[in-house]
Protein backbone atom coordinates (compact mmCIF):
# COMPACT_ATOMS: atom_id res chain seq x y z
CA UNK A 1 0.00 0.00 0.00
CA UNK A 2 1.16 3.51 -0.77
CA UNK A 3 -0.18 6.09 1.63
CA UNK A 4 0.13 9.79 2.29
CA UNK A 5 0.17 10.87 5.92
CA UNK A 6 -0.69 14.30 7.26
CA UNK A 7 0.74 14.27 10.75
CA UNK A 8 0.47 16.92 13.45
CA UNK A 9 4.00 17.94 14.45
CA UNK A 10 4.55 20.08 17.51
CA UNK A 11 7.98 20.48 19.10
CA UNK A 12 6.79 21.04 22.65
CA UNK A 13 3.90 21.99 24.91
CA UNK A 14 4.26 25.71 24.36
CA UNK A 15 5.20 25.87 20.69
CA UNK A 16 2.61 26.01 17.96
CA UNK A 17 2.26 22.97 15.73
CA UNK A 18 1.46 22.31 12.10
CA UNK A 19 0.47 19.46 9.81
CA UNK A 20 3.32 17.89 7.86
CA UNK A 21 2.88 15.59 4.90
CA UNK A 22 4.84 12.36 4.60
CA UNK A 23 4.76 9.80 1.81
CA UNK A 24 4.47 6.26 3.18
CA UNK A 25 5.01 3.87 0.29
CA UNK A 26 5.28 0.10 0.58
CA UNK A 27 3.11 -0.40 3.67
CA UNK A 28 1.88 -3.94 4.27
CA UNK A 29 -1.85 -4.24 4.86
CA UNK A 30 -1.09 -6.70 7.67
CA UNK A 31 0.68 -4.03 9.72
CA UNK A 32 -1.04 -2.41 12.65
CA UNK A 33 -1.43 1.35 12.51
CA UNK A 34 1.41 1.78 15.01
CA UNK A 35 3.69 -0.56 13.06
CA UNK A 36 3.02 1.60 10.02
CA UNK A 37 4.12 4.64 12.06
CA UNK A 38 7.20 2.68 13.20
CA UNK A 39 8.17 2.14 9.55
CA UNK A 40 7.65 5.82 8.79
CA UNK A 41 9.77 6.72 11.83
CA UNK A 42 12.58 4.34 10.82
CA UNK A 43 12.71 6.07 7.46
CA UNK A 44 12.64 9.51 9.06
CA UNK A 45 15.47 8.53 11.41
CA UNK A 46 17.49 7.12 8.51
CA UNK A 47 17.10 10.46 6.75
CA UNK A 48 18.36 12.20 9.87
CA UNK A 49 14.98 13.71 10.64
CA UNK A 50 13.12 13.79 13.96
CA UNK A 51 10.78 10.77 14.24
CA UNK A 52 7.09 11.32 15.07
CA UNK A 53 6.39 11.08 18.81
CA UNK A 54 3.33 9.03 19.68
CA UNK A 55 2.07 7.16 22.74
CA UNK A 56 2.06 3.36 22.77
CA UNK A 57 2.76 0.55 25.18
CA UNK A 58 1.22 -2.92 25.22
CA UNK A 59 0.06 -2.98 21.59
CA UNK A 60 -2.52 -5.58 22.65
CA UNK A 61 -5.46 -3.18 23.07
CA UNK A 62 -5.53 -3.45 26.85
CA UNK A 63 -3.33 -0.71 28.30
CA UNK A 64 -5.00 2.43 26.95
CA UNK A 65 -1.74 4.18 26.11
CA UNK A 66 -2.20 4.55 22.37
CA UNK A 67 -4.42 7.35 21.17
CA UNK A 68 -4.54 9.28 17.87
CA UNK A 69 -7.31 11.04 16.04
CA UNK A 70 -7.29 9.28 12.67
CA UNK A 71 -9.26 10.98 9.88
CA UNK A 72 -11.33 12.84 12.46
CA UNK A 73 -12.23 9.75 14.48
CA UNK A 74 -10.73 8.73 17.82
CA UNK A 75 -8.80 5.45 17.33
CA UNK A 76 -9.69 5.53 13.64
CA UNK A 77 -12.52 4.11 11.57
CA UNK A 78 -12.97 0.69 13.18
CA UNK A 79 -15.57 0.40 15.97
CA UNK A 80 -14.45 -1.01 19.33
CA UNK A 81 -10.79 -0.98 18.34
CA UNK A 82 -7.81 0.82 19.86
CA UNK A 83 -5.29 2.34 17.44
CA UNK A 84 -2.79 -0.44 18.15
CA UNK A 85 -5.33 -3.05 17.06
CA UNK A 86 -6.30 -1.15 13.93
CA UNK A 87 -4.88 -2.77 10.83
CA UNK A 88 -3.82 -1.09 7.63
CA UNK A 89 -6.16 -3.36 5.67
CA UNK A 90 -8.95 -1.06 6.86
CA UNK A 91 -7.49 1.62 4.58
CA UNK A 92 -7.18 1.70 0.83
CA UNK A 93 -4.12 2.01 -1.34
CA UNK A 94 -3.51 5.67 -2.15
CA UNK A 95 -5.41 7.00 0.89
CA UNK A 96 -4.44 10.20 2.62
CA UNK A 97 -4.61 9.71 6.39
CA UNK A 98 -4.83 12.70 8.74
CA UNK A 99 -3.36 12.03 12.18
CA UNK A 100 -3.90 14.45 15.06
CA UNK A 101 -3.43 14.24 18.81
CA UNK A 102 -6.35 14.22 21.30
CA UNK A 103 -7.51 17.81 21.75
CA UNK A 104 -8.66 18.92 25.17
CA UNK A 105 -7.51 21.61 27.55
CA UNK A 106 -7.06 18.93 30.21
CA UNK A 107 -4.90 16.84 27.81
CA UNK A 108 -2.07 19.25 26.92
CA UNK A 109 0.17 18.17 24.07
CA UNK A 110 3.64 17.08 25.21
CA UNK A 111 5.05 16.61 21.75
CA UNK A 112 3.65 15.78 18.30
CA UNK A 113 0.89 13.23 18.92
CA UNK A 114 1.60 12.60 22.61
CA UNK A 115 -0.66 14.19 25.23
CA UNK A 116 -0.60 14.29 29.02
CA UNK A 117 -3.65 12.43 30.32
CA UNK A 118 -2.86 12.75 34.03
CA UNK A 119 -6.16 14.62 34.59
CA UNK A 120 -7.69 11.13 34.51
CA UNK A 121 -5.41 10.15 37.41
CA UNK A 122 -6.76 13.10 39.42
CA UNK A 123 -10.31 11.76 38.93
CA UNK A 124 -9.34 8.23 39.96
CA UNK A 125 -7.42 9.53 42.99
CA UNK A 126 -10.49 11.47 44.09
CA UNK A 127 -12.33 8.14 44.24
CA UNK A 128 -10.21 7.13 47.21
CA UNK A 129 -7.60 4.47 47.84
CA UNK A 130 -5.98 2.68 50.76
CA UNK A 131 -2.32 2.80 51.65
CA UNK A 132 -2.32 0.33 54.55
CA UNK A 133 -1.83 -3.43 54.31
CA UNK A 134 -5.40 -4.75 54.32
CA UNK A 135 -4.52 -8.43 54.49
CA UNK A 136 -4.62 -11.01 51.77
CA UNK A 137 -7.47 -11.26 49.27
CA UNK A 138 -10.64 -12.80 50.73
CA UNK A 139 -12.10 -16.01 49.32
CA UNK A 140 -13.30 -15.38 45.81
CA UNK A 141 -16.94 -16.32 46.36
CA UNK A 142 -17.32 -15.11 49.94
CA UNK A 143 -19.57 -12.24 48.86
CA UNK A 144 -22.26 -13.40 46.43
CA UNK A 145 -22.57 -11.18 43.35
CA UNK A 146 -25.53 -11.76 41.01
CA UNK A 147 -24.33 -12.69 37.54
CA UNK A 148 -25.96 -9.74 35.69
CA UNK A 149 -24.41 -7.35 38.22
CA UNK A 150 -20.99 -8.93 37.83
CA UNK A 151 -21.34 -8.66 34.05
CA UNK A 152 -22.37 -5.01 34.17
CA UNK A 153 -19.51 -4.18 36.55
CA UNK A 154 -17.13 -5.98 34.22
CA UNK A 155 -18.45 -4.00 31.23
CA UNK A 156 -17.62 -0.78 33.10
CA UNK A 157 -14.27 -2.10 34.33
CA UNK A 158 -13.25 -2.74 30.71
CA UNK A 159 -12.36 0.96 30.51
CA UNK A 160 -8.65 1.28 29.71
CA UNK A 161 -8.53 5.05 30.33
CA UNK A 162 -7.29 5.92 26.84
CA UNK A 163 -9.21 9.22 26.69
CA UNK A 164 -10.96 8.52 23.37
CA UNK A 165 -14.28 9.53 24.97
CA UNK A 166 -12.91 12.99 25.78
CA UNK A 167 -11.24 13.27 22.38
CA UNK A 168 -14.42 12.31 20.51
CA UNK A 169 -16.76 14.44 22.63
CA UNK A 170 -17.67 17.78 21.00
CA UNK A 171 -17.63 19.21 24.55
CA UNK A 172 -14.43 17.48 25.76
CA UNK A 173 -16.46 15.90 28.54
CA UNK A 174 -15.02 12.97 30.50
CA UNK A 175 -18.42 11.59 31.49
CA UNK A 176 -17.94 8.15 29.93
CA UNK A 177 -14.56 7.59 31.59
CA UNK A 178 -15.71 8.82 35.01
CA UNK A 179 -19.02 6.97 34.86
CA UNK A 180 -17.24 3.72 33.98
CA UNK A 181 -14.81 4.15 36.88
CA UNK A 182 -17.68 5.04 39.22
CA UNK A 183 -19.92 2.22 38.00
CA UNK A 184 -17.52 -0.69 38.21
CA UNK A 185 -17.26 -0.07 41.95
CA UNK A 186 -20.78 1.24 42.60
CA UNK A 187 -22.44 -1.81 41.08
CA UNK A 188 -20.68 -4.33 43.30
CA UNK A 189 -21.57 -5.09 46.93
CA UNK A 190 -17.97 -4.37 47.97
CA UNK A 191 -18.28 -0.84 46.63
CA UNK A 192 -21.41 0.20 48.52
CA UNK A 193 -19.91 1.66 51.69
CA UNK A 194 -18.24 4.59 49.91
CA UNK A 195 -20.58 4.69 46.93
CA UNK A 196 -21.92 8.23 47.32
CA UNK A 197 -18.81 9.88 48.73
CA UNK A 198 -16.86 8.44 45.81
CA UNK A 199 -19.37 9.53 43.19
CA UNK A 200 -19.50 13.10 44.45
CA UNK A 201 -15.72 13.44 44.76
CA UNK A 202 -15.01 11.95 41.33
CA UNK A 203 -17.65 14.01 39.52
CA UNK A 204 -16.54 17.24 41.22
CA UNK A 205 -12.93 16.53 40.26
CA UNK A 206 -13.93 15.69 36.70
CA UNK A 207 -15.70 19.04 36.35
CA UNK A 208 -12.54 20.94 37.28
CA UNK A 209 -10.85 19.65 34.14
CA UNK A 210 -13.40 18.67 31.52
CA UNK A 211 -16.52 19.89 29.74
CA UNK A 212 -20.09 18.86 30.39
CA UNK A 213 -22.15 16.10 28.80
CA UNK A 214 -24.80 17.06 26.26
CA UNK A 215 -25.65 13.47 25.31
CA UNK A 216 -24.32 13.42 21.77
CA UNK A 217 -23.38 9.76 22.25
CA UNK A 218 -20.12 10.28 20.35
CA UNK A 219 -18.06 8.78 23.22
CA UNK A 220 -19.61 5.32 23.14
CA UNK A 221 -18.95 5.13 19.40
CA UNK A 222 -15.30 6.04 19.91
CA UNK A 223 -14.70 3.81 22.95
CA UNK A 224 -12.37 0.94 22.05
CA UNK A 225 -14.08 -1.10 24.78
CA UNK A 226 -17.60 -0.16 23.61
CA UNK A 227 -18.66 1.10 27.03
CA UNK A 228 -22.27 2.34 26.74
CA UNK A 229 -23.53 5.78 27.80
CA UNK A 230 -26.01 3.99 30.10
CA UNK A 231 -23.33 4.32 32.78
CA UNK A 232 -23.51 8.12 32.42
CA UNK A 233 -27.21 8.08 33.33
CA UNK A 234 -26.41 5.87 36.32
CA UNK A 235 -23.69 8.26 37.44
CA UNK A 236 -26.05 11.25 37.15
CA UNK A 237 -28.54 9.42 39.37
CA UNK A 238 -25.87 8.54 41.92
CA UNK A 239 -24.57 12.11 41.92
CA UNK A 240 -27.99 13.51 42.85
CA UNK A 241 -28.36 10.90 45.58
CA UNK A 242 -24.84 11.69 46.77
CA UNK A 243 -25.72 15.36 47.17
CA UNK A 244 -28.71 14.37 49.31
CA UNK A 245 -27.01 11.66 51.33
CA UNK A 246 -23.64 13.23 52.01
CA UNK A 247 -25.33 16.29 53.40
CA UNK A 248 -27.30 14.15 55.77
CA UNK A 249 -24.10 12.53 57.00
CA UNK A 250 -22.39 15.90 57.27
CA UNK A 251 -25.18 17.33 59.39
CA UNK A 252 -24.56 14.57 61.93
CA UNK A 253 -20.88 15.34 62.28
CA UNK A 254 -20.29 17.36 65.46
Amino acid sequence: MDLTLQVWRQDGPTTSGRFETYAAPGISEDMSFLEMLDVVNERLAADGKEPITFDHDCREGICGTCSLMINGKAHGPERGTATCQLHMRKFNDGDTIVIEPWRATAFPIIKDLMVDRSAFDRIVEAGGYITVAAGSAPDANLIPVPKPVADAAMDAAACIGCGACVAACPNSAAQLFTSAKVAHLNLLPQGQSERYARTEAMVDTMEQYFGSCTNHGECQEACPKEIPIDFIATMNKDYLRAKLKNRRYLSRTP
Partner: protein
Amino acid sequence: MASTTVARAATSRPAPQKPKRRAPLPIELYRSAVGKKYVMAITGIALMGFVFFHMLGNLKMYLGPGHFNEYAEWLRTLLVPFLPRTTTLWLMRIGLIVAFALHIHAAYSLTRMNHAARNTKYQGRRDYVAANYASRTMRWSGIIVGLFIVWHLFDLSWTGTGYTFVRGAVYENVDGSLSRIPVGILYVVANIALGFHLFHGAWSLFQSMGWNNPRFNRWRRDFAAIFAAIIVVGNVSFPLAVMAGVVGVG
Protein backbone atom coordinates in the same frame (compact mmCIF):
# COMPACT_ATOMS: atom_id res chain seq x y z
CA MET B 1 17.56 8.97 19.87
CA ALA B 2 15.26 11.72 20.88
CA SER B 3 15.86 13.31 24.22
CA THR B 4 14.14 11.44 27.03
CA THR B 5 13.08 14.36 29.17
CA VAL B 6 10.08 16.33 28.02
CA ALA B 7 8.80 19.55 29.48
CA ARG B 8 5.29 19.12 30.80
CA ALA B 9 2.66 21.73 30.17
CA ALA B 10 0.88 23.03 33.23
CA THR B 11 -2.05 20.67 33.48
CA SER B 12 -5.14 22.58 32.44
CA ARG B 13 -7.37 24.35 34.91
CA PRO B 14 -6.19 24.98 38.44
CA ALA B 15 -8.32 23.74 41.31
CA PRO B 16 -10.62 26.42 42.76
CA GLN B 17 -8.74 28.62 45.20
CA LYS B 18 -10.94 28.58 48.24
CA PRO B 19 -13.61 26.00 48.95
CA LYS B 20 -16.99 27.65 48.64
CA ARG B 21 -19.26 27.63 51.64
CA ARG B 22 -21.84 24.90 51.61
CA ALA B 23 -25.05 26.32 50.23
CA PRO B 24 -28.63 25.03 50.38
CA LEU B 25 -29.05 21.86 48.35
CA PRO B 26 -30.55 23.31 45.13
CA ILE B 27 -27.79 25.93 44.87
CA GLU B 28 -25.13 23.37 45.76
CA LEU B 29 -26.46 21.15 42.98
CA TYR B 30 -26.67 24.02 40.49
CA ARG B 31 -22.97 24.79 41.03
CA SER B 32 -22.05 21.48 39.41
CA ALA B 33 -22.38 20.78 35.70
CA VAL B 34 -24.28 17.55 36.37
CA GLY B 35 -26.68 19.56 38.55
CA LYS B 36 -27.11 22.15 35.79
CA LYS B 37 -28.03 19.35 33.43
CA TYR B 38 -30.70 18.25 35.91
CA VAL B 39 -32.00 21.83 35.88
CA MET B 40 -31.95 21.89 32.08
CA ALA B 41 -33.86 18.60 31.96
CA ILE B 42 -36.48 19.61 34.56
CA THR B 43 -37.07 23.06 33.06
CA GLY B 44 -37.04 21.40 29.64
CA ILE B 45 -39.86 19.07 30.72
CA ALA B 46 -41.85 22.06 32.00
CA LEU B 47 -41.30 23.93 28.73
CA MET B 48 -42.20 20.83 26.72
CA GLY B 49 -45.46 20.66 28.67
CA PHE B 50 -46.14 24.30 27.83
CA VAL B 51 -45.30 23.86 24.16
CA PHE B 52 -47.57 20.81 23.94
CA PHE B 53 -50.61 22.42 25.56
CA HIS B 54 -50.00 25.70 23.68
CA MET B 55 -50.19 23.74 20.43
CA LEU B 56 -53.21 21.75 21.61
CA GLY B 57 -55.09 24.89 22.66
CA ASN B 58 -54.30 26.62 19.37
CA LEU B 59 -55.95 23.76 17.47
CA LYS B 60 -59.18 25.43 18.62
CA MET B 61 -58.66 28.05 15.89
CA TYR B 62 -59.89 25.41 13.45
CA LEU B 63 -63.27 25.51 15.24
CA GLY B 64 -63.75 29.17 14.41
CA PRO B 65 -63.45 32.54 16.18
CA GLY B 66 -66.16 31.75 18.75
CA HIS B 67 -64.47 28.64 20.16
CA PHE B 68 -60.99 30.11 19.94
CA ASN B 69 -61.74 33.37 21.73
CA GLU B 70 -63.82 31.49 24.29
CA TYR B 71 -60.80 29.27 24.99
CA ALA B 72 -58.57 32.34 25.39
CA GLU B 73 -61.07 33.81 27.87
CA TRP B 74 -61.23 30.47 29.72
CA LEU B 75 -57.44 30.64 30.27
CA ARG B 76 -57.87 34.03 31.95
CA THR B 77 -60.70 32.79 34.15
CA LEU B 78 -59.07 29.50 35.25
CA LEU B 79 -60.08 28.63 38.87
CA VAL B 80 -61.97 31.93 38.99
CA PRO B 81 -64.32 31.70 41.91
CA PHE B 82 -61.41 30.41 44.00
CA LEU B 83 -58.73 32.83 42.71
CA PRO B 84 -59.14 36.28 41.11
CA ARG B 85 -59.27 36.56 37.31
CA THR B 86 -55.91 35.90 35.50
CA THR B 87 -54.23 34.81 38.77
CA THR B 88 -53.81 31.19 37.71
CA LEU B 89 -52.61 32.35 34.30
CA TRP B 90 -50.04 34.61 35.91
CA LEU B 91 -48.82 31.85 38.25
CA MET B 92 -48.24 29.65 35.22
CA ARG B 93 -46.54 32.51 33.39
CA ILE B 94 -44.19 33.11 36.30
CA GLY B 95 -43.35 29.42 36.34
CA LEU B 96 -42.56 29.60 32.63
CA ILE B 97 -40.41 32.72 32.99
CA VAL B 98 -38.39 31.06 35.77
CA ALA B 99 -38.03 27.88 33.69
CA PHE B 100 -36.86 29.88 30.66
CA ALA B 101 -34.40 31.89 32.71
CA LEU B 102 -32.87 28.82 34.33
CA HIS B 103 -32.78 26.88 31.06
CA ILE B 104 -30.97 29.71 29.29
CA HIS B 105 -28.57 30.47 32.14
CA ALA B 106 -27.61 26.82 32.56
CA ALA B 107 -27.09 26.48 28.80
CA TYR B 108 -24.96 29.61 28.73
CA SER B 109 -22.68 28.60 31.59
CA LEU B 110 -22.31 25.00 30.36
CA THR B 111 -21.42 26.29 26.90
CA ARG B 112 -18.71 28.47 28.38
CA MET B 113 -17.40 25.51 30.36
CA ASN B 114 -17.35 23.35 27.22
CA HIS B 115 -15.54 25.95 25.17
CA ALA B 116 -12.92 26.28 27.90
CA ALA B 117 -12.49 22.51 27.94
CA ARG B 118 -11.06 22.55 24.40
CA ASN B 119 -8.92 25.64 23.97
CA THR B 120 -7.44 24.38 20.69
CA LYS B 121 -9.96 22.89 18.31
CA TYR B 122 -9.21 19.98 16.01
CA GLN B 123 -7.23 21.30 13.07
CA GLY B 124 -8.31 18.47 10.78
CA ARG B 125 -11.90 17.71 9.83
CA ARG B 126 -13.96 15.81 12.43
CA ASP B 127 -15.96 12.78 11.36
CA TYR B 128 -18.94 12.41 13.70
CA VAL B 129 -20.62 9.04 14.17
CA ALA B 130 -23.44 9.55 16.66
CA ALA B 131 -23.68 13.32 17.10
CA ASN B 132 -26.42 14.42 14.71
CA TYR B 133 -27.40 17.75 13.21
CA ALA B 134 -29.95 18.39 15.96
CA SER B 135 -27.57 17.65 18.82
CA ARG B 136 -24.76 19.77 17.40
CA THR B 137 -26.97 22.79 16.71
CA MET B 138 -28.79 22.92 20.07
CA ARG B 139 -27.26 26.30 20.88
CA TRP B 140 -28.35 27.78 17.56
CA SER B 141 -31.83 26.25 17.51
CA GLY B 142 -32.23 27.43 21.12
CA ILE B 143 -31.21 30.99 20.23
CA ILE B 144 -33.55 31.02 17.20
CA VAL B 145 -36.47 29.78 19.34
CA GLY B 146 -35.65 32.27 22.11
CA LEU B 147 -35.57 35.24 19.71
CA PHE B 148 -38.71 33.99 18.01
CA ILE B 149 -40.56 33.87 21.35
CA VAL B 150 -39.76 37.56 21.95
CA TRP B 151 -41.10 38.40 18.48
CA HIS B 152 -44.12 36.15 19.04
CA LEU B 153 -44.99 37.93 22.31
CA PHE B 154 -44.75 41.36 20.66
CA ASP B 155 -46.69 40.08 17.67
CA LEU B 156 -49.71 38.49 19.33
CA SER B 157 -49.67 39.50 23.02
CA TRP B 158 -48.22 42.96 23.54
CA THR B 159 -48.27 45.41 20.66
CA GLY B 160 -48.87 43.70 17.37
CA THR B 161 -46.38 44.14 14.56
CA GLY B 162 -47.89 46.48 12.04
CA TYR B 163 -51.33 45.00 11.45
CA THR B 164 -54.49 46.24 13.22
CA PHE B 165 -53.86 44.69 16.64
CA VAL B 166 -56.80 44.52 19.05
CA ARG B 167 -55.86 43.36 22.52
CA GLY B 168 -57.85 40.26 23.47
CA ALA B 169 -59.25 39.64 19.97
CA VAL B 170 -57.13 36.54 19.62
CA TYR B 171 -58.56 35.00 16.48
CA GLU B 172 -58.58 38.27 14.54
CA ASN B 173 -54.98 39.04 15.58
CA VAL B 174 -53.76 35.61 14.45
CA ASP B 175 -55.44 36.20 11.12
CA GLY B 176 -54.09 39.75 10.82
CA SER B 177 -50.48 38.74 11.55
CA LEU B 178 -50.10 35.35 9.91
CA SER B 179 -51.86 36.22 6.67
CA ARG B 180 -48.76 38.29 5.83
CA ILE B 181 -46.62 35.82 3.86
CA PRO B 182 -43.14 36.77 5.31
CA VAL B 183 -44.50 36.53 8.86
CA GLY B 184 -46.10 33.17 8.09
CA ILE B 185 -42.76 31.90 6.76
CA LEU B 186 -41.01 33.19 9.89
CA TYR B 187 -43.40 31.14 12.05
CA VAL B 188 -42.76 28.03 9.94
CA VAL B 189 -38.97 28.41 10.13
CA ALA B 190 -38.97 29.08 13.89
CA ASN B 191 -41.12 26.03 14.55
CA ILE B 192 -38.83 23.80 12.50
CA ALA B 193 -35.93 25.08 14.64
CA LEU B 194 -38.04 24.23 17.70
CA GLY B 195 -38.56 20.75 16.25
CA PHE B 196 -34.80 20.18 15.96
CA HIS B 197 -34.33 21.46 19.51
CA LEU B 198 -36.99 19.08 20.82
CA PHE B 199 -35.69 16.13 18.80
CA HIS B 200 -32.44 16.19 20.77
CA GLY B 201 -33.73 17.71 24.02
CA ALA B 202 -36.60 15.29 24.55
CA TRP B 203 -34.14 12.41 24.23
CA SER B 204 -31.29 14.02 26.11
CA LEU B 205 -33.40 14.73 29.20
CA PHE B 206 -33.72 11.01 29.93
CA GLN B 207 -29.95 10.65 30.21
CA SER B 208 -29.56 13.86 32.24
CA MET B 209 -32.25 12.77 34.68
CA GLY B 210 -30.67 9.33 34.97
CA TRP B 211 -33.78 7.68 33.49
CA ASN B 212 -32.09 4.73 31.91
CA ASN B 213 -33.58 1.27 31.95
CA PRO B 214 -33.34 -1.53 29.40
CA ARG B 215 -37.13 -1.83 29.65
CA PHE B 216 -37.76 1.52 28.02
CA ASN B 217 -34.41 2.65 26.58
CA ARG B 218 -35.39 1.81 23.02
CA TRP B 219 -38.49 4.01 23.32
CA ARG B 220 -36.61 7.13 24.36
CA ARG B 221 -35.45 8.09 20.86
CA ASP B 222 -38.89 7.28 19.43
CA PHE B 223 -40.58 9.41 22.08
CA ALA B 224 -38.39 12.40 21.22
CA ALA B 225 -38.95 12.00 17.48
CA ILE B 226 -42.72 11.61 17.83
CA PHE B 227 -43.00 14.49 20.30
CA ALA B 228 -40.99 16.81 18.03
CA ALA B 229 -43.03 15.72 15.01
CA ILE B 230 -46.38 16.36 16.75
CA ILE B 231 -45.29 19.84 17.83
CA VAL B 232 -43.89 20.78 14.43
CA VAL B 233 -46.88 19.47 12.45
CA GLY B 234 -49.36 21.17 14.80
CA ASN B 235 -47.57 24.51 15.01
CA VAL B 236 -46.60 24.74 11.35
CA SER B 237 -50.18 24.03 10.34
CA PHE B 238 -51.39 27.32 11.86
CA PRO B 239 -49.48 29.78 9.65
CA LEU B 240 -50.12 27.53 6.64
CA ALA B 241 -53.85 27.43 7.40
CA VAL B 242 -54.02 31.20 7.82
CA MET B 243 -52.00 31.86 4.64
CA ALA B 244 -54.21 29.38 2.75
CA GLY B 245 -57.34 31.09 4.05
CA VAL B 246 -58.64 28.03 5.95
CA VAL B 247 -58.46 30.08 9.14
CA GLY B 248 -59.45 33.73 8.90
CA VAL B 249 -62.18 36.31 9.38
CA GLY B 250 -62.41 37.31 5.74
